[in-house]
């Protein structure tokens, strides 16, 4: 098996699985319990918080654990809108955000709780900071632009966006979804200048069901889940101690190995692109070498991405479609569409994404399998 769908999720790192297992079977106390088992659990959560804070370059008490990236995005968006209701309800975002952001805004807009402006990207998927600032209005309360795009790997100029937005209006909150960025590109919150930043565990070798939100000290957002007052009243519910412990360990490992790991990914990416470009008419989406090192999105006109993914899975190679689509619905990826990719190429696109365990041999074998599958499938075209 060759697993190259790490932007969807990763296998849990054995070392992480071990600490998670321990947190489940040994330090299984409730951090809120006054006894020693509770204290032990609380200590583990604190350590994890410190590890995440170290990775983001912030204070530990600026980190709030959530059930994942989606919840973190929801908390940032809903929490800001509710906290700034007097100022307004306008949000500026990019047209290439993850559904956790776009669908949340759409939903809130339908309820009349927000208005939003989508800033279109250029052909590589990048938004221009000037365009973002131009969209800011007097009643704008939040600007949210992702750090790294999940479909094509484009790095957004978040730092520049934050700087210009704050110049225009320091009252506007700046949020970034860094789910695909943490461990892959530098994401220090002070350098980015953001107020809020979402992260997720399962994209870097931690289990699913855990993530977090950085919320800069002094920035007020309204809690969305109330109850026992955990996470300093920000996110109630007994802490997912095993998940949090796993996230902490995975983030620490990612930081330790980041330089080496990203250099390897870049080499894998370069090699993969060189091999894929030998396939006739291969169309690489975006500009991968100038962006995140772990994602390659490539289309092969005449071959449907979904079919290619199935064919590759039959050979033991796991990748993803650039977008979910079917001939009945013809739903091309909103990201590729916003980038102006022609629909035929978008329909054929697949996403290949590296994780902590991939090797050069795997990537070369993968390229070979893709070449063969594309050749075979192109013989069976629709007329």
């Amino acid at each position, binding site marked *: 098996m060759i697993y190259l769908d790490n932007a969807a999720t990763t296998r849990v790192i054995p070392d992480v699985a071990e600490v998670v297992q321990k947190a489940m079977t040994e330090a299984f106390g409730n951090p809120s319990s006054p006894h020693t088992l509770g204290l032990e659990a609380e200590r583990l959560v604190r350590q994890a918080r410190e590890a995440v804070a170290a990775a983001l370059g912030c204070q530990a008490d600026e980190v709030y654990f959530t059930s994942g990236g989606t919840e973190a995005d929801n908390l940032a968006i809903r929490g800001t809108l509710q906290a700034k209701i007097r100022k307004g309800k306008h949000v500026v975002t990019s047209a290439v955000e993850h559904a956790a952001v776009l669908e949340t805004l759409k939903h809130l807009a339908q309820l009349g709780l927000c208005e939003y402006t989508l800033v279109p990207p250029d052909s590589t998927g990048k938004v221009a900071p000037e365009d973002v600032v131009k969209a800011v209005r007097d009643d704008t309360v939040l600007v949210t632009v992702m750090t790294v795009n999940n479909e094509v790997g484009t790095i957004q100029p978040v730092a520049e966006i934050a700087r210009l937005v704050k110049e225009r209006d320091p009252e506007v909150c700046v949020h970034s979804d860094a789910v695909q960025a943490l461990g892959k590109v530098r994401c220090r919150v002070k350098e980015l200048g953001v107020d809020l930043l979402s992260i997720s565990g399962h994209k870097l070798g931690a289990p699913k069901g855990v993530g977090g939100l950085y919320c800069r000290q002094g920035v007020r957002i309204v809690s969305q889940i109330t109850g026992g007052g955990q996470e300093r009243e920000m996110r109630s519910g007994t802490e997912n101690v095993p998940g949090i412990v796993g996230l902490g360990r995975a983030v620490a490992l990612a930081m330790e190995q980041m330089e080496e790991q990203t250099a390897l990914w870049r080499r894998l990416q370069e090699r993969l692109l060189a091999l894929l470009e030998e396939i006739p008419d291969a169309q690489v989406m975006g500009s991968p070498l100038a962006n995140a090192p772990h994602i390659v999105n490539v289309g092969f006109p005449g071959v449907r991405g979904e*079919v290619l993914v199935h064919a590759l899975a039959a050979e033991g190679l796991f990748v993803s479609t650039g977008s979910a689509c079917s*001939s009945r619905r013809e739903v091309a990826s909103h990201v590729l569409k916003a980038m102006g990719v022609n629909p035929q190429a978008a329909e054929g696109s697949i996403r290949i994404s590296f994780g902590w365990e991939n090797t050069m041999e795997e990537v070369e074998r993968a390229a070979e399998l893709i070449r063969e599958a594309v050749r075979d499938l192109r*013989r*069976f075209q629709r007329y």
Partner: protein
Amino acid sequence: MYDLLLIRYGEIGTKGKNRHVFEQRLQANIAAALRDLGIDEVERAYTRLYVPVKADLEEIIQRLQKVFGIASFSPVMRVPLEVEAIEEAAVKLVAESLRERRISPKDKLTFKVITHRANKGFPLTSPEMNKRLGACLLRKYPQLTVDVHQPQLSVEVEIREHYTYIYSERIPGVGGLPVGVSGKGVLLLSGGIDSPVAGYQMMKRGVEITAVHFHSYPFTSERAKEKVLDLAKVLSSYGGPVPVHVVHFTEIQKAINEHCPPKLMVTIMRRMMLRLAEAVAQRERAAALITGESLGQVASQTMESIAATNAVVRLPVFRPLIGFDKTEIVDLAERIGTYSISIQPYEDCCTIFVPRHPETHPKLAEVERAEERLPMEELMEEALARTEVVVCGK
């Protein structure tokens, strides 16, 4: 309060000499539908079946509403053939009805008593029983008044050979014939909206279903197959386990794509499907094929197209939806619970490879000529050899 469910069967009551075959099958089907609730005895006496209320009544009712061959059924109290016992039960039944309908002693409720005296040895005649019971209930419950034309509550009393049955409710069944009495048919199950409905319609006429699905991995996904198995499971709730023969269709589609003219691809694909379905029918000793075709719905469902595909098989092909509009099919699909599964957006083999402009009036001779280029025997053998059978439902 209720001891039993009394089950009436309609159509099969009229089947002459074969009646006991039908009755036995219905009895067995009901037992099978209720077995996992801990109910396995279904009593049969004359033209009624009886099921003990040994599990949640609502659950039993829901299950019975899916058993073909049942005309209607009633939750009943069973008492001896004694007037006092009958009176006592009727009082209890009315008390429960008043409670359920929240009728206080100040409110009004119209009622009537209907006695069916199948046991002519019972000392009182039906009118005498009606009068006696009516008087007894009127004395007991001042809120009752008699209305023989449109009563709000009917108290029905069936006096039979050994017992009397008392009830107030008749729940309609789905009708039809017990699954199995009409033989076995092979259903071409695609994953779309129509074919499961076609299967349901034939089950309703007593046909035991074996499904065949054409799987074209990697052109269709594993999820498309899961979807078909889910559909088969819904069908199985109307008449027992449904085996699904998942035929490996990929090589055939590739061969058609390679060797045949695009505009005839759909016709030839349908012909291959029918041939394979007939082969499965032979293996399974099934006597008919079933498809979800509806005349004129798509290019492959014109009269000419149907004629061209039908020509390759000798078994009768049942097309129960042939005269249905799409909206009618959708309504039925929603009612039987397959619609929400069918609309999941996984492609099936009918939608991939489909040319933009398929032939709507294929000429048989032309189709046959085009097919000559296919290594027919080899393809059929390979597809059948790689067929996997999954039994859906309990």
